[in-house]
Every structure is written in structure tokens, then in C-alpha cells.
């Protein structure tokens, strides 16, 4: 199928861009990083086209549905969001070192998607709901923001560690200042949090329309609540206890690990109603 070809090309582009960003970081060659940016833009175009093509192909197959409803589709949508979110941040902060920490996440996601069943399957009745589409989209935009936040948090920890030892130079010299990194960790989370909140709510609305219960404590729901609570704790610790810097960075990484578990771990380790990974 054409859409899968296009997604494969996207995977390749993310791979090349990751290599570019990392090489640029260690080789201190801005030009290579700039090429990385253009590759990411190309990947954005190709993956957007791929999503469109997949959508159209599903109609041609007589299935007709938005491509955000199984593990493969959610993974590519996640990578798509991470990439766009990253490009926006890069554009705004005019710093390409972030790419070395964020684009590999998109690449890894696409590689994982590549190992999964990619054909367009019809939707079982329970998944035919506009609420579900809104649910997946909002959740994954939120997850993408958390991924960016965690990538920046790693940069923060690297930079803070070197500064603590009063070392200068090294790759971290190219990073934005710790003040900006700290701010960015927070900024990404305040983008992710409302999206995750909306994601949980639309999921509840979907469940209510399908089963008559908006909350049933199934493992996936519960894990999304856990993720939400971790970030709520982050926000309160930051506002009122002055948890900035190192501790905030660590909380951001913990939050993203919880997100990953919510997304993949629950299906691989626990069981529930959700469709990903299962059938």
C-alpha cells in the first residue's frame, strides 16, 4: 500500500535526521544540523501525505475511517506530532541541539511501528465513534508534548551536571542556557497537560456513549489518570514549592516513562478494553 511506503520513507528520513542532529552536536557543524531541519520538514510533509493517503485508501477499501485507531496508526500519529512539536520549538528557540534528543524518539517510534501490522483493518463496532477519534488525537498530541519535555529534561540534566563540575566546552556548550531549558521543560508540559486532560475526557465521553459508564477503572484509564496525576504533582511542586531545575527535570522524565507505560506497557503487561496491541 502506498501509505505504508510513505511511512517507510518517513522512518528513513527520521533516521537520517537523527544521525544529522547527533553528528552536528558532536562535530559542531551547524550546516549538518540545518540539513537535519530540512529533512524533518520533508518528513513532516511525507508523513502528513501518508496519513492523508491512508485515509483515502481506507475509503477506497470500503472501510472509510480516520487513521488513528490501531497501534500502527497511533504510533505514526505520535511520531508525526512529536516531529511537528519539535519543529515548532526549534523555530521558536532557534536552537537545533534539541533535535538530537527529540527526533530519535520519533525515529524509534517509527521503527517500532514498522515491526507492527500495518494493513488497514476494518473497525470493530465499539471503535466506531467520533469521540474515539478526538480521544486518540488529543491524547497523542499530549504525549508528544511530554516526549519533547522529557528530551529537554535530559539535556538539562547533562548541562547542569557539567556546570556543577565547573567544566566548560563539550557538547552542552551548544545547548540553550539551563534557564531556557528549564522553562522549556515546563512549557512543553503546560501544552501537554490540557491535551491529556481533554484526551481523558473525550475517552470518558466515548466510554459513556458506548457502555454507559464514563469511568470504569480499567487499566488503561487508570494509567492515564496516573500520568495525569504525575504531571499535576509536577505543576503544584513547581508553582508552590519552587521545584525548578534538576528535580523538575527528573519529574518530567518520570512523567514521560509513565506515559510510555500507559501507552504501550498497559497493553503488553496488563489487560483491558483498549484496542492497541491486542487484536
Amino acid at each position, binding site marked *: 500500500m502506498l501509505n505504508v511506503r510513505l511511512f517507510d520513507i518517513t522512518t528513513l528520513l527520521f533516521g537520517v535526521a537523527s544521525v544529522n542532529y547527533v553528528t552536528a552536536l558532536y562535530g559542531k557543524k551547524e550546516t549538518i544540523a540545518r540539513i537535519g531541519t530540512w529533512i524533518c520538514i520533508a518528513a513532516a510533509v511525507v508523513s502528513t501525505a501518508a496519513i492523508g493517503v491512508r485515509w483515502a485508501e481506507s475509503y477506497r477499501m470500503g472501510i472509510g475511517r480516520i487513521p488513528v485507531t490501531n497501534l500502527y496508526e497511533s504510533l505514526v500519529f505520535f511520531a508525526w506530532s512529536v516531529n511537528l512539536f519539535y519543529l515548532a520549538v526549534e523555530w521558536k528557540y532557534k536552537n537545533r541541539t534539541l533535535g538530537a534528543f527529540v527526533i530519535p524518539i520519533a525515529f524509534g517510534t517509527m521503527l517500532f511501528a514498522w515491526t507492527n501490522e500495518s494493513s488497514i483493518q476494518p473497525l470493530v*463496532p465499539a471503535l466506531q465513534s467520533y469521540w474515539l477519534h478526538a480521544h486518540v488525537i488529543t491524547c497523542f498530541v499530549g504525549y508528544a508534548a511530554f516526549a519533547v519535555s522529557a528530551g529537554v529534561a535530559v539535556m538539562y540534566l547533562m548541562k547542569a551536571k557539567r556546570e556543577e563540575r565547573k567544566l566548560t566546552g563539550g557538547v552542552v556548550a551548544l545547548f540553550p542556557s539551563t534557564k531556557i531549558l528549564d522553562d522549556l521543560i515546563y512549557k512543553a508540559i503546560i501544552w501537554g497537560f490540557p491535551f491529556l*486532560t481533554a484526551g481523558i475526557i473525550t475517552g470518558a465521553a466515548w466510554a459513556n456513549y*458506548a*457502555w*454507559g459508564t464514563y*469511568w470504569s477503572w480499567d487499566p488503561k484509564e487508570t*494509567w492515564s*489518570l496516573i500520568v495525569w*496525576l504525575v504531571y499535576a*504533582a509536577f505543576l503544584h511542586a513547581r508553582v508552590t514549592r519552587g521545584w525548578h531545575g534538576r528535580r523538575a527535570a527528573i519529574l518530567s522524565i518520570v512523567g514521560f516513562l509513565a506515559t510510555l507505560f500507559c501507552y504501550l506497557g498497559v497493553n503488553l503487561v496488563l489487560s483491558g478494553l483498549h484496542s492497541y496491541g491486542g487484536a
Partner: protein
Amino acid sequence: MAEGKRNESLMDRVWKFFISLKLAIFVIIVLAIISIIGTIIEQNQPLEKYRQLYSDGTIRVLEGLGLFDMYHSWWFLLLLVLFTVNLICCTVDRLPRVVKVVRNPKTTLDGNLEKTLGLVDRWKRKGELKALAATYQEALGGAFARPRVTENEGTLHLYAEKGVISRFGVYVTHLSIIIIFLGAIIGNVFGFKGYANIVEGQSASVIPTRGGTNHVDLGFAVRCNKFWVEYYPNGQPKEYSSDLSVIENGREVLRKTIEVNDPLQYKGVWFYQSSYGPAGASTVTVAVRDPDGGGGETVTLSPGRKKEIAGYGTISAVDYQGNFQGLGPALLVVLEKPGNQPAQFWLLKSYPEFDRQRRDSRYLSFAGLNEIFYTGLQVAKDPGVNIVWVGCTLMVVGIMIAFFLSHQRLWIRLSRGGDGRVEVVLAGSTNKNRLVFEKKFEKIQADMKAVKA
């Protein structure tokens, strides 16, 4: 007296405990940890399931701690109560102060305030105080927000603000949590959840709830007229549908075909398509005709029963396939004619003339499978659910207000300096998003300096 004082300080301490954010963060983290446990120990499973996983001793301990039904245990509810009390106390403690600050903004920039502000600039220019104030009022109105002017001992103060509402985003968010809890409580107390299996053609008006230990009389009946399944070309189910009628006082008052994700609602009770199954054995209809076209009769066959066809023989249906070798639904029949060996052959629903090939005195066609289903309906009444949705909407709105708006304030102070020129002090503050505001401040600073009298 001493007694009273100690009481007061105890009260104080209790109050401090309940308004503290440490408690909030602690409770949030505990809730997260409990939720993790709740996903590791599967909740509300039948005892046999737990027996496979744990030893009897472990089961007794976990059961005693309420860990098999955590979310309804007293300690979990207590934790939610603690969380709510914390939230309410915190609001009671802070909100009045915020309202006060917002109602009575500090409109004059005195020396003390100036020292607390990070963004301050000063310059001098020629001109007359009042005229300059009018000029700056105009300019600031264009560049930021229209300021008010206060005069104080010969000094003129301009004050402008934007995004006051951002101060309330947090409270809207917190209030929304309480509204959601309220909706959930109302739903639990005044609502019910039940389950009904209704065979096609039959109706139900009493719904078992709480796993069958209780019953709710709806006051009306729901009849299942028909249930059917549609399939995708690959054979996967596409939609489960039930044609339902609501019958009240012997009259049909509502009729709707429900599907998964498209329920029926009557008098606040919702019916959701949830499952289905066969109700009793299916029958098949077979048409018996003469090859020259005359004399048709149809017979209905039940599984395992032979049926006599006068002047021909007995037939029975022995197998059914939904898609026989790509030719569609097919029925395997056994024909026994007196004095002959029993013959076994397939009838194809899509090719009614197919059986002519036997060149017998009659030919048979498979007219259809009459399956009788029951439809499984989830029945729910939740008078709190709309309150929950109001809370949810407020929550998203509140979070956006809290995160993306900021309360930005600007002051300009004009006073006559010693050298006859006017001293201008521009100061600004924001409660959020400092970096963005700094840029804005720089721009306003440049604008104000460039403004012509």
C-alpha cells in the same frame, strides 16, 4: 485564657494542615500509587480467578484490606474526602485574597512597589506633567491597555492591566474537580447500572442491577423487535444493531434502532448495545418445487428433526455454512426416499435453481436461516452525568486560562525632577510567562520613549 489560646493554636494547626500544598502533593502522589496497585491487582474479579493467582492466606489479607475492590473501599473514599477538603480549604484561604487584589489593584507606583518589580526603566523628558500624562495614556492605551490615572501629591500615576482573569484559572480548574465529584456522587446515589438480555420479540421492564442482587422497575417496557449483525467483506463484524421499542401503558411510545455507540434514551434511562447471543436453536426454511414450476411449498426445519414432504420423502438439515466455498450461505440436507439410500447434498441460498441438477421429481431451494437472537443491553441511568460534563468542560477551560493567560500590569509614574524636566518611571510585572512579557515590555519601553508629546 491559656486554654483558649491553646485551642486556637490547635485550630490554627489543623487549618494549616488542611490548606497546605504539601498535603495536596502528598495526596496526589498517594492517589497515583494506589492507582498503580489497582492495575497490578486486578479489581472485582471472581474469587476463582484470584484463587489461581494467590494463595488462600494472601487472598484473605488482600480481601481484608479491600484491595480487590479498592475504588469502593472506605480508605479510598476517605482519601478522596481528604483531597476535597484540602482543595476547598485551600480555595477558602486564597480566593478572597485574590479577589481583593483584583478588586483593589495597586494603581500607584510607590518606591516600595518599585523595588519589588523586576522590570523597571526610567528616563527624563521635557514637558508639562498633565500633558505628558495624557500623551502616555493615549500611547499605552494603543500599545497595551488603557490606563487609569491617579494623582498623588503632585505625582501622576498611570496603571494598566491585562488578563486579570488568569488569576482565576486555577480556581476554575479546582472548582471543576469538585463539580465532577459531585456529578459522580449524584450518579452513584440516584442512578443505576443494569443489564438486560432480551430475546427477539420479547420485552423487559424489570432490570437486574448490581450483578443481579437488586432490581429496578423501569415503569415502562423495552421490546427487542429484531437483532442483527452486519459484516465487512472479510467476515469481521461491522455493526451490531437492535430494533427496540419502548412500550408504556400498552402503547409504543418510541422506536429506535440502536448500535454500538448509538444508544436509546427514554426518561433518563439509556440502553446500550452491549452483546448478543443465540436464543434457542435456529431453524431453516426450505422451498420445495416441481421442476416445471408448479406446486411450491415451504417447510421449516429444526435441527435434528426430519420433516415429511408428502409424495416425496423426508428431509432434514444437517449443516449450515455462512459462506460455502465462496458461494455464499449454504445448507447441507439429507433426503430419504422410501426404498432409496439417503442422499446428502448442499443447497445454495444465492442459487435457488441449483438443485434442479439432481433432475428429480422435486427440487429444493434454501430460502433462509431463521436465527433467533437475544440482544444484550447495558441499561443505565445517571442523573449526574451532565454535571460531570460541565465539570470536564470547566476543567479544560480553567487549565487553559491558568496556563495561557497571564495577569500583566504596567505602571508609569510622572514626577517633576529637580532640573525642571519630568522624570518618567515605567515598571511592569506579570504572574506568568515572564520571558514573553519581557519582550513585550521592551517594545512598550521603546514605544513610550519614542512617543511625541
